[in-house]
């Protein structure tokens, strides 16, 4: 069975909510929409305080090409445009809407019927995706229409359904319940970029999803399910392309399109289906609420802007000994400052960790066991990069390719000395990136 070639680790899977059906989350009293839910320029509000909005009304325009508009997920009145603490842990501007009723924009097709065929041209598909504010839903939140407009011709689409993060099951449950819609979404992506071949990459810890998708994919030309051996970080774009088609994307500024591949998350494929076929902008998504101490781990179909505290309530409430709340998975998610943070386009899960689980081990000296070197999926030397960052040797750090680190956390996960490798490497990456940009600006 295929997998990527360099490094990788095997964290405990802990897919507690794997068997759970998707439940629809109730509406919040107030919904909060941060203006930067994606990579790129923040969106620009196009509604004022007091404006009346419906479900699906656009409330913020894209701030540039690499940006995405934001749509209201609720009906009601715009209460204010203010700053709130978002998942990044900082105060960011956001639109806050008081919810009244649940009135949808009439243009949205709310029927359950599957629409398979479309006469839309590739350009029109991309335009609809852009207008619907769709971004990569695996967590990176890269605007989808940018990826669908590659600068070099591509020959393969890879759908990322590996969900290599422990605990998370949002994509898994979506595949189990909406396989046809996903497959139509995949064929839309294929049409948009003009390729004949698509792979749906699923790790073999989800045999039911593999079987179901294989069965359903028979009805779609050119779509093939590609089972992969479980290994973290298989969901990383570069690792996934390597695993599925055996091509390695060179270092930035090269993009996946430069090796002829485009990767989209399975959730994104579903959102593209809804946007193109049902005219429904991206305003809800499946969020996994999980954790060993959580009473009822759940997969919840949640409107954007719902505070995470409501989802935690729905899953049985915040356990007494919660030490950490993580937005996303345990390997790459962000620890949240509070639970009022709203669900955004990239929120794939909420993970609660107990006090005991959440504390890091005490850092000991590096014993040069080389486990981090073996684990690094980019073929870097994390122990060395950490030391270089700590001693601010930026030149050498750049020469040792610190900028190619994908921040997957495999090194720190595997380190027997519990060294905070990635903390330092991230900091070094930021600094070296600044130096490189300054140099580019100069010349």
């Amino acid at each position, binding site marked *: 069975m295929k997998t990527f070639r360099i490094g990788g680790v095997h964290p405990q899977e802990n897919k507690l909510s794997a068997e759970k059906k998707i439940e629809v989350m109730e509406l919040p009293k107030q919904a909060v929409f941060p203006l930067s839910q994606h990579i790129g320029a923040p969106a620009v509000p196009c509604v004022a305080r007091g404006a009346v909005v419906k479900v699906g009304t656009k409330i913020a325009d894209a701030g540039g090409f690499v940006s995405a508009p934001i749509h209201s997920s609720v009906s009601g009145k715009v209460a204010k445009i203010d700053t709130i603490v978002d998942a990044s842990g900082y105060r960011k501007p956001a639109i806050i809407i008081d919810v009244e009723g649940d009135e949808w924009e009439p243009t949205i097709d709310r029927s359950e019927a599957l629409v398979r065929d479309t006469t839309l041209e590739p350009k029109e598909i991309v335009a609809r995706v852009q207008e619907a504010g769709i971004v990569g839903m695996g967590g990176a939140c890269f605007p989808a229409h940018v990826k669908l407009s590659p600068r070099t011709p591509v020959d393969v689409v890879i759908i990322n359904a590996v969900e290599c993060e422990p605990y998370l099951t949002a994509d898994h449950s979506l595949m189990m319940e909406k396989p046809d819609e996903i497959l139509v979404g995949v064929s839309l992506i294929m049409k948009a970029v003009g390729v004949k071949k698509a792979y749906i990459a699923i790790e073999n810890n989800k045999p039911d999803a593999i079987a179901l998708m294989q069965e359903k994919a028979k009805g779609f030309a050119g779509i093939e399910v590609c089972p992969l051996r479980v290994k973290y970080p298989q969901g990383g774009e570069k690792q996934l392309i390597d695993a599925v088609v055996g091509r390695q*994307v060179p270092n930035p500024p090269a993009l996946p399109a430069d090796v002829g591949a485009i990767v989209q998350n399975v959730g994104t494929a579903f959102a593209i289906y809804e946007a193109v076929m049902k005219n429904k902008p991206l305003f809800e998504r499946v969020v996994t609420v999980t954790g060993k101490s959580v009473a009822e781990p759940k997969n919840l179909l949640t409107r954007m802007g719902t505070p995470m505290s409501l989802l935690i309530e729905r899953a049985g409430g915040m356990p007494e000994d919660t030490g950490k709340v993580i937005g996303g998975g345990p390997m790459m998610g962000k620890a949240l400052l509070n639970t009022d943070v709203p669900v955004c386009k990239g929120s794939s899960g909420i993970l609660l960790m107990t006090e005991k689980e959440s504390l890091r081990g005490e850092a000991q000296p590096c014993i040069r066991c080389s486990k981090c070197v073996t684990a690094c999926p980019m073929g870097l030397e994390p122990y060395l990069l950490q030391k270089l960052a700590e001693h601010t040797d930026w030149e050498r750090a750049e020469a040792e390719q610190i900028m190619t680190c994908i921040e997957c956390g495999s090194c720190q996960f595997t380190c027997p000395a519990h060294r905070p490798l990635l903390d330092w490497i991230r900091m070094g990456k930021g600094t070296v990136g600044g130096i490189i940009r300054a140099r580019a600006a100069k010349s």
Partner: protein
Amino acid sequence: MSNKLKVSLSPHVHSGDSIRRNMDWVIIALLPAMLWSFYVFGLGAVIVTLTSVASCMLFEWAINKYILKNPKTTLSDGSAIVTGLLLAFNLPSNLPLYIIIMGALFAIGVGKMSFGGLGNNIFNPALLGRVFLLISFPVKMTTWPVPHQYTAYADATTGATPLANLPEAGLGDLFFGNIGGSLGEVSALLLLVGFAILLLRKIISWHIPVSILFSAFVFSVLFYAIRGGMPFGDICMLSLKHLLAGGMMLGAIFMATDYVTSPMTHKGMLIYGACIGFLVICIRLFGSYPEGMSFAILIMNGFTPLINNACKPKRFAKEVKK
């Protein structure tokens, strides 16, 4: 909720691996060979092992507390026990106590703590201790008691190492360990059992031991063939005996693979191992010492930083396959 939320950067989970766990498995892997040495050399082996381990731990504790003034003890990571055990494995079973204690002091004090403790040393501490004793007490360090004198310690009858007269030594005796020698090095079989344990628990990778043994065998065959005067079959047999005799197995499996002093990448490990194999055969065949493992490993320890600089891991997308 009573307590404050914790905030830190990802990853938020850990494999559960620890330095202690690694050291514990090394100790477990050393146990078969240690018990065999108790059986072969009797009381002397027990005394030497206990003294070595106890004095290594004592020196580590004392230096940490009184010289480095470190408020936290580093004994709990288990590295001092490993050093003590490995030092004992490299000593003859009739060595007087004061020599063992001096060796432990040198191993821990100079070999490890003077560099700043675990993780910072350039050379393998146990080997430094052994080489220090070998140079200081050459006679005592190169006369080994003959096997199976269970109650003898300082008064044990001694004999020469099989390395001095390798063609005469029996292959089976070498493999199972019915020979004289340092404590831990006699039974190649049980050292290989330890190797299997380490490999299964993923404590070490195969690269260093295999490359050492392979390159030692190759160079041994080569040198004997150049020297001439022996049928090829005998050369191969003799080379095989080289792998089993002396500290070769112990060194290849437990000493050269020491995390701190060996290279970080697989390519580097292979180069490192091949050089050790070459050096040990050179010393054994052309040098004045019958045994060369300690020196070979120590020399290559010195080259480790250079190897680390030269051998980078295979980076992602170095060769793009289209």
